């Protein structure tokens, strides 16, 4: 992996898409890389489709624009596939999708179930990071785990780490 990697995460208000982006960026930072995470901010309420972005690079990042041409796309909910063109502008071809009904051309992972098991709620934002790093290698499991624990110290973090690791393992 060389150059800058750009990730776009699709989710809904309240699902933690921005938190996921920030956790991923933190992990990359822990791996010694430069990183940037931000949302396509808007006055969106819970439930409304939202996007967040991550850039990771060996070099300092100095771009200030939305991610229009992601290398990787993460979709936190399958329903979004109908509403949003998640592949818009994609340079890469990796769409990592949380779903129970596999979708052609995506890396499918049923993160809801994993999260229900591990966290007790269908909160998949951190869980999906496991799949993401497995598929792309843009951060290590350890650094993501550390980043999660920093963000959610204590048992909440531990459960999220568990979910993330499970997803990491579950994805092919």
């Amino acid at each position, binding site marked *: 992996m060389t150059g800058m990697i750009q990730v776009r995460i699709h989710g809904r208000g*309240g699902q933690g898409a921005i938190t996921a982006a920030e956790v991923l960026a933190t992990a990359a930072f822990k791996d010694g890389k430069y990183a940037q995470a931000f949302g396509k901010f808007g*006055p969106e309420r819970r439930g409304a489709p939202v996007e967040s972005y991550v850039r990771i690079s060996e070099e300092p990042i100095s771009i200030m624009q939305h991610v229009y041409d992601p290398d990787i796309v993460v979709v936190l909910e399958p329903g979004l596939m109908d509403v949003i063109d998640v592949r818009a502008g994609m340079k890469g071809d990796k769409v990592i999708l949380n779903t129970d009904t596999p979708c052609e051309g995506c890396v499918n992972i049923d993160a809801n179930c994993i999260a229900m098991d591990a966290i007790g709620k269908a909160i998949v934002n951190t869980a999906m990071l496991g799949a993401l790093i497995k598929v792309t290698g843009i951060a290590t499991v350890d650094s993501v785990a550390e980043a999660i624990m920093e963000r959610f110290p204590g048992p909440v973090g531990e459960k999220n780490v568990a979910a993330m690791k499970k997803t990491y393992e579950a994805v092919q």
Partner: protein
Amino acid sequence: MSDILAPGHTACAGCGEIIGERVVLEAIGKNVVVCQATGCMEITTTSFPTTAWKVPWIHVTFENASAVASGVAEALAQQGKKATVVAIGGDGGMMDIGFQALSGAMERGHNILHVITDNEAYMNTGIQRSSGTPKYASTTTSPAGSVLPGKGEWKKDILMVCAAHHIPYAATASVGYLDDLKAKVKKAMEYEGPKVIQVLTPCVPGWGTDPSKTVSLAKSAVETGIWPLYEIEHGKVKITHKTKELRPPEEYLTGQKRFKHLKPEHIAAIGEHAKANYERLLSLETSSLQLF
């Protein structure tokens, strides 16, 4: 389908405020002009070039709903048009930054129904403390932390403050009691001059609750005495929903994320405060004294 508000707006699933605002306006009917302060209700309903509203509706800034309404009311009167003029805003827009506009409009006596949709914080900007935030509630600018237990002050008694302007009618209401709310709106409309209705409207992310609980919470606030339903007609207090025995405050507080950090002593303090307040209102009612 509602005559007043179309779906497709972007309020959160389970938003209490949009229930309150719509029900108030439905009770008034279509012969209305709505003057809205900035806040969730504006942002979720009027993204140019669309609008959810089916009645004449204007928004200018955060701090001036009642002042805009003053101009609207007098301009309509000048044109011989008769319509109910409503100034409406959140606790922030009416109790804090727009309170002077409200006070001024009351003082001048314009024929306006001023409505506070009170979700007890600045929700549109992400749950900050307002004067309407209850004591001990955690908000992003009055967060609970290792040394502070959330907001430090009791909620502003805006209804008494408004009633003290010697207006003919002021009332609290709750989206847990829509019939009471509608009756109060109708009653308010019978009076010429300034009227104020303050509606409790739970907020899903702001309070940290399940969307389906919005209405039951709004009921529980009343049953625990934390949100007494009463009205002040020409200076006289009347409790419109009496409770023999107030329910314990936990029933309302537990399950709300904004109160998650409360210690028993905080809960007790809230309960005592609610009780004292309720009893004060009861004694004012019993006395039949004209306060203002």
